[in-house]
């Protein structure tokens, strides 16, 4: 492939319609906000080094924790696992030259930076929102209105962006598949994105509705959620969690999909249990929509609801467990390349299993009544979204950076990054379980002095996490500039994004889109495949 069609650098700063450019735009923008949100997390951990509220003002602390949660969810994890990797990979996997609606795709991305800077600006004009990322009324109605309204505007924009993206993914996966490519021949990431996008389309409008009603309570004096005017504050919680519990799966399912792509390649084995992986995704999507009230076991919900939501919540562990057993079986007897991508995936498996176990515990109402709204919950969801999804994001960056840039990342720095992240993460969040069990509530700037030592250990872990990003940043900047050339297919992979140059041309493939009906065609039994299947490895060797 001699015709190298390079994307000019300024296209990455403009209204590009190329799904690969948009994917990288999402990734870089998201990572910028990750650094902002991480700095805010650092401020929280500094405040909690001492039991007194002595590092920042109390209302500033609440602004910081609100911004931290909102930024990490809506500007880092959701846009990166969906927007960045979804955009980059889905057209490749379905054999298309771009997304179904390229212009809508660009619009969805360009809603992100304004929304992010709008959110950050609120801190400088009268103070950011201070009612947490959950924005429960009546607190969100009684705290300063400007910050809260800007928060609502920003989240509405981000939710809109998310819906645009989801519509595009559904259309692309269902309608833009290359002729001859069946749904049950797609790489698992496409199924994950399909499931996620269905969740986004069904659940996000409910959040938008809740936030619009909330904004009317704030600026127009209505009383939807304001008990002083006869409103019902708990209804907001139902509407909020109807989106925000599926949001956990919106953050986690694409990560599951990415792991299913990365592990078989570096383990040199087919993905174990392809069909059961798909059914698990569908099961998680369905169950994910009917578990929201487990966030409200102490909110005065009726007893039947607690029973129903306990069982529904716990049952989600079954399809989730299937996925983890399948991944372990994929690794088992493989030829594991212990590179950064695979090690980050293994870190993800450990962390997510840990977070899943505490999740099943939290589903049990009598136990949840004790630890709800404590640091136990803080530890639990960081094990899911940080130890889970963020570890997968890093694994995916190590895996696809060669394709995106044409250069390999440095493996020594990568493994150092992985080790520091794993240690820092677990030192930071493991002790927080004990804090919650023993009486430290979440979202506090001051705490009982008996918890000081454990909080300090947790803060040391946070410091280590901050340090862990340095080798990564050095690695990315250095490798993009001077890294070893990756070649088309450094991992000897079978999926279609590797059957083209690195970086790929605008049209993705210079020739006809390759048809790969066996995306996990690894393994040493050469004749096991029926003759009619099209094998990525043959296309790859034919193209060379």
């Amino acid at each position: 492939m001699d015709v190298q069609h390079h994307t000019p650098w300024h296209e990455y700063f403009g209204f590009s319609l190329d799904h690969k450019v948009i994917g990288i735009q999402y990734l870089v923008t998201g990572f910028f906000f990750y650094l902002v949100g991480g700095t805010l997390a650092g401020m929280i951990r500094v405040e909690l080094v001492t039991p007194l509220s002595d590092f920042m003002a109390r209302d500033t602390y609440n602004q910081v924790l609100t911004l931290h949660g909102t930024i990490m969810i809506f500007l880092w994890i959701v846009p990166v696992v969906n927007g960045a990797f979804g955009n980059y990979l889905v057209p490749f996997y379905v054999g298309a030259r771009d997304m179904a609606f390229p212009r809508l795709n660009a619009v969805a991305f360009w809603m992100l930076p304004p929304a992010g800077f709008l959110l950050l600006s609120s801190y400088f004009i009268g103070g950011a929102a201070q009612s947490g990322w959950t924005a429960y009324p009546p607190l969100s109605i009684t705290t300063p209105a400007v910050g809260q309204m800007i928060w609502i505007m920003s989240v509405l924009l981000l939710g809109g962006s998310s819906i645009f993206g989801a519509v595009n993914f559904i259309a692309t996966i269902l309608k833009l598949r290359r002729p001859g490519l069946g749904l049950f021949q797609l790489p698992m990431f496409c199924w994950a994105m399909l499931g996620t996008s269905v969740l986004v389309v069904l659940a996000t409008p409910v959040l938008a509705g809740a936030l619009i009603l909330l904004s009317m309570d704030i600026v127009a004096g209505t009383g939807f959620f304001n008990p002083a005017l006869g409103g019902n504050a708990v209804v907001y919680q139902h509407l909020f969690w109807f989106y925000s519990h599926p949001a956990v799966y919106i953050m986690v399912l694409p990560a599951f999909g990415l792991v299913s792509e990365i592990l078989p390649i570096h383990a040199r084995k087919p993905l174990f249990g392809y069909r059961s992986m798909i059914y698990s995704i569908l099961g998680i999507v369905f169950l994910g929509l009917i578990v929201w009230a487990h966030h409200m076991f102490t909110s005065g919900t009726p007893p039947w609801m607690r029973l129903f939501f306990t069982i529904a919540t716990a049952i989600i562990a079954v399809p989730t467990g299937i996925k983890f057993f399948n991944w372990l079986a994929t690794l088992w007897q493989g030829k594991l390349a212990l590179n950064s991508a695979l090690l980050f995936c293994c870190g993800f498996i450990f962390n997510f299993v840990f977070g899943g176990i505490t999740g099943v515990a939290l589903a049990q109402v009598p136990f949840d009544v004790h630890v709800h709204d404590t640091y136990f919950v803080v530890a639990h969801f960081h094990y899911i979204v940080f130890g889970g999804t963020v570890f997968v994001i890093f694994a995916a960056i190590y895996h696809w950076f060669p394709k995106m840039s044409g250069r390999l990342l440095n493996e020594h720095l990568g493994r150092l990054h992985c080790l520091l992240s794993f240690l820092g993460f677990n030192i930071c969040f493991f002790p927080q379980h004990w804090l919650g069990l023993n009486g430290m509530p979440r979202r506090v700037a001051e705490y009982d002095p008996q918890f000081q030592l454990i909080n300090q250990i947790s803060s040391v872990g946070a410091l280590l996490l901050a340090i862990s990003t340095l080798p990564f940043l050095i690695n990315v900047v250095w490798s993009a500039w001077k890294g070893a050339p990756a070649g088309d297919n450094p991992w000897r992979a079978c999926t279609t994004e590797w059957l083209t140059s690195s970086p790929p041309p605008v049209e993705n493939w210079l020739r006809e889109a390759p048809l790969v009906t066996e995306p996990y065609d690894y393994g040493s039994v050469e004749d096991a495949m029926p003759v009619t299947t099209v094998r990525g490895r043959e296309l790859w060797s034919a193209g060379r």
Partner: protein
Amino acid sequence: MPIPASVLTLAAGILLALVSLWVGQNINLMPVAAADDAATVDALFKVLLSIGVGLLLGITAMLVVALVHFRRRPGDHLDGPAVEGNLPLEIFWTAVPAIVILMLGVYSYDIYARMGGMADFNHHTSMPPPEVEQASLGNPADPETVIWGGIDRAEGMAFPVEVTAMQFAFIFHYPQQNFTTGELHLPLGQPVELQLKSNDVIHAFWVPEFRLKQDVIPGQPTVLSFTANRQGDYDIICAELCGPYHGGMRSKVVVEDSRSFEEWLIRNTPATVATAPDSSQTA
């Protein structure tokens, strides 16, 4: 002769089960238990801890063994075996977790029902005096009198205390004695019923040693009934973000034997009401 893999697996499984049972029974992560149902919650937690430790250790061990044993040796460019699935194995690891999860659900439902979490709150709203009913005809289901949720043993003889939460304090009113304090005193071994109301935003009443927490919601009264069974002072902690001083919103609950509790009640009861027991004493 090498030991067969099945024997090794069995031995590892037994060892894993023993270790996780030991951890569940012997590692105490909870604060002291000071209410009747706290011990049952702790028993549930021990079961969860055992299962969790077993699962985590098992999966971590498999992960580590895979990383060490199946790592790619230098110069090895071959693939692993092309195993795409194993239906009996997949059915096994779907069914076993499903059964464990359902059993856990039944177990925790049973505990929660015994604690009073599944109580019907209707008895609280029943039978207002006829004249009151007349007066509130325009608003038959006044949200201020309906109990919206909570934990209620429905024993009817529980000692009532009205708890009001506001930014950033809890206030306790003893309706039978008609006085208000900033420190909750409770009788040892006697059922009590806290009736919780909020004046401004949502708070949560949490005493870690009782293993009990209930949101205090403006416009939606809730209840929390339990029996304290261990003397001592415990912290009451607000667990729902309620504003800048949320972290400082704490109070104290004193659990004392019935004699000290009665004395404390009498000491605090306003003079007009307190004359009755005083005069009987002097007579």
